[in-house]
């Protein structure tokens, strides 16, 4: 029972991470297509500035919770996806310092350099997270001892790459909507148009990804065993449609929330299909890392659950406050003009 609760919490944490860091990763990746001049760039940096760090902590928490609740899954997942993860970390490091250093340098060349770091450091994690999760959905070659039997290229299979593209699209749409929330005038218009332009591509890739999921993964078997669960799929379908109508209506906050719902429900749709595995083995299902063979002791799960039940709502409250209070339209005064 505790294992199942933690499995759901594990899924929710990753989903929240994608929902939050998704917008700033997506916006960072889209910067060259949205910004026309220095002021636009500053605005984009400012749109993410107060939030990216708090958002990224969800990654640390998701990682930490995997470690605490399912140590074996953490061990196998992170050592198995070694190179991909190291690339992800390096990209996130480069991105984090770009936030800080860009504002402190004065020459055009140095600014351009940090801009490039921002784009690289945003696009690469979006892509890699998608590749990683698609591979988890599909199963990775782990043997009976939980040792990864593949190489770097193992992960770059068609389904993995499709997952990467899907994440990039989800995140960039989400990021454009965030910029629309925080801006007025030209930049707002451009962000809205860009979101509208990404939307049909996203829909096409989404449908293709679902079809590929049927072919490459066993996720659907969970759903076919309990067809009622398929109703969950209505949520992302609703969200994806709603996002488009809200973009047309120019209701930016709501469009953003709808895209957030899309990301969360997509992640959870995948995670529920995975149950009870955390990391299926593509060699033999018997080698899979499941919540039962990976979980921590009951005592640890209980204590961690208490901590989570007390602390996570508090975190949500102050992060919500932060977003509500600071996510206002950016003015010239905010940029120091």
């Amino acid at each position, binding site marked *: 029972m505790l294992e199942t609760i933690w499995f759901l919490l594990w899924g929710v944490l990753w989903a929240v991470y994608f929902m939050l860091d998704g917008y700033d990763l997506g916006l960072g990746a889209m910067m060259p297509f949205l910004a026309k001049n220095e002021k636009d760039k500053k605005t984009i940096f400012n749109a993410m*500035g*107060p*939030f990216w*760090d*708090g958002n*990224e*902590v969800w*990654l*640390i*928490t998701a*990682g*930490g919770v*995997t*470690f*605490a*609740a399912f*140590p*074996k899954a*953490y*061990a*196998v*997942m*992170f*050592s198995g996806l*070694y*190179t991909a*993860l*190291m690339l992800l*970390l*390096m990209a*996130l*490091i*480069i991105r*984090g*310092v770009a*936030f*800080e*250093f860009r504002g*402190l340098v004065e020459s055009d060349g140095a600014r351009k350099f940090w801009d490039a770091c921002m784009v690289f450091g945003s696009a690469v994690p979006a892509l890699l997270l998608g590749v990683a999760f698609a591979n988890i959905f599909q199963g990775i070659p782990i043997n009976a*001892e939980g*040792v*990864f039997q593949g*190489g*770097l290229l193992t992960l770059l299979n068609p389904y993995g790459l499709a997952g990467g593209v899907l994440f990039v699209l989800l995140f960039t749409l989400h990021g454009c909507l965030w910029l629309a929330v925080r801006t007025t005038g030209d930049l707002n218009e451009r962000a809205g148009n860009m979101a509208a332009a990404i939307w049909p591509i996203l829909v096409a890739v989404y449908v293709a990804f679902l079809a590929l999921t049927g072919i490459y993964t066993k996720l659907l078997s969970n759903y076919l065993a309990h067809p009622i669960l398929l109703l969950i799929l209505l949520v992302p379908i609703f969200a994806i449609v709603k996002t488009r109508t809200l973009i047309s209506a120019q209701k930016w906050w709501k469009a953003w929330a709808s895209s957030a719902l899309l990301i969360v429900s997509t992640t959870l749709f995948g995670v529920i299909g995975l149950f009870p595995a955390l990391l299926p083995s593509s060699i033999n299902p018997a080698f899979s890392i499941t919540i039962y063979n990976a979980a*921590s*002791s009951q*005592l*640890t799960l209980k*204590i*961690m659950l208490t*901590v*989570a039940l007390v*602390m*996570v709502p508090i*975190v949500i409250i*102050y*992060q919500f406050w*932060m977003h509500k*209070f*600071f996510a206002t339209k950016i003015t010239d005064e905010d940029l120091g003009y």
Partner: protein
Amino acid sequence: MDVLMLSRLQFAMATMFHFIFVPLTLGLSVMVAIMETYYVRTGKEVYLRMTKFWGKLFVINFVLGVVTGITLEFQFGTNWSKYSEYVGDIFGSLLAIEATVAFFMESTFLAAWIFGWKKLSAKMHCACIWIVAIASNMSAVWIILANGWMQNPVGYVIRNGRAELENFITVITNPFAWSQFLHNGFGALVVGGFFIMGISAYHLLRKNEVEFFTTSFKMGLVCAFIFSIAVAVQGHGHAQEVAHVQPAKLAAMEALWETTDSAPMYLLSVPNEAKEENSIELFGIPGGLSFLAFNSFDAPVKGLKAWAKEDRPPVTVTFLAFRLMVGLGTLFPLLCIWAWIKRKNLVENKLLLRVMLYSIPLPYIAIWAGWAIAEVGRQPWIVYGIMKTSDAVSPIVTSQVAFSFIGLTLLYTILGTCEIFLLTKFARKGPEPVKA
């Protein structure tokens, strides 16, 4: 090189780099919070400018601490997967709690502080930096509880082929870990104090913003003074705990080879690991080591030879790091006393100011040395007495680790250079001029 050695090097490199930023974050956050509190209470412009100036340096430093910390968390899984599997039940939960109770708060409220100058009321703004300071130090508590458990494992039972939690309270009240936390925390305040004094000294040497930097210098001095003494006193207590809990580490710290009753303390000795003896031992204080370690001049102290060769920590590194730490730890209070005597007329004391400027790196070196003793001195154990480092490493291909090691080293070198360049630039620039 094999995966084990590369993983160890990578971890050491990543931790040491991370630990350029952490102590200053811990120490300076408290100092900036105090400055802003002074401002809120007195309304004096100088305190506001101090908050902004030192706060800016704090923020530049903070970001690198954060991003390099993420690498560390994930390295347990990537490079030490056998370890993660074996102790995740306890160690993993402490890390997860750290993120939920401290790191979120630190990151969120620091952003509120940076972006909230115009949006928040003065009191609310000041509260934000206090939350950052408290959360940073709280984060250190949980991380060091995790490290302290590796040093002195308690509250667990070996079951199902791994270490499982038996008593959570025992784990979070681990006295060895709390002693480590205090030692580290006091050290961080020394780092903060000397950082402020050193940069103030730079400007005072140029007679730049004399009032601003005299006030800053004095604040740094008070902080460094109190905590350089505290860290020394507490450090002695901590060493006694090491003597009880990790006798092999103590023997390595002192390069004591034979188990000796009434062990002397040599002011000068040169260990020779190959020959299992010290090539030089001079100026022995009879019973000195016994007394320092066990409060009794004739207490027996175990020598390194009491352990099989493969169970001994690397002696030279541990021994030298300990000398370095204690030497610097003795120097800090002396420097503080000197500065205290001259505090009324700082600008005239060029020699003092120059010494203080060049002393900025010293507390960093001391705190690095301290961690080297803690980590190297505990080898070959990753969890003292339970799991060896060589059994902890991931079953992965060498080339992967070689790639990440080279990549991270290059990246960190570049970032470290940028960071030092920027810190120096803004430290030199001084505070923003007063608005007319």
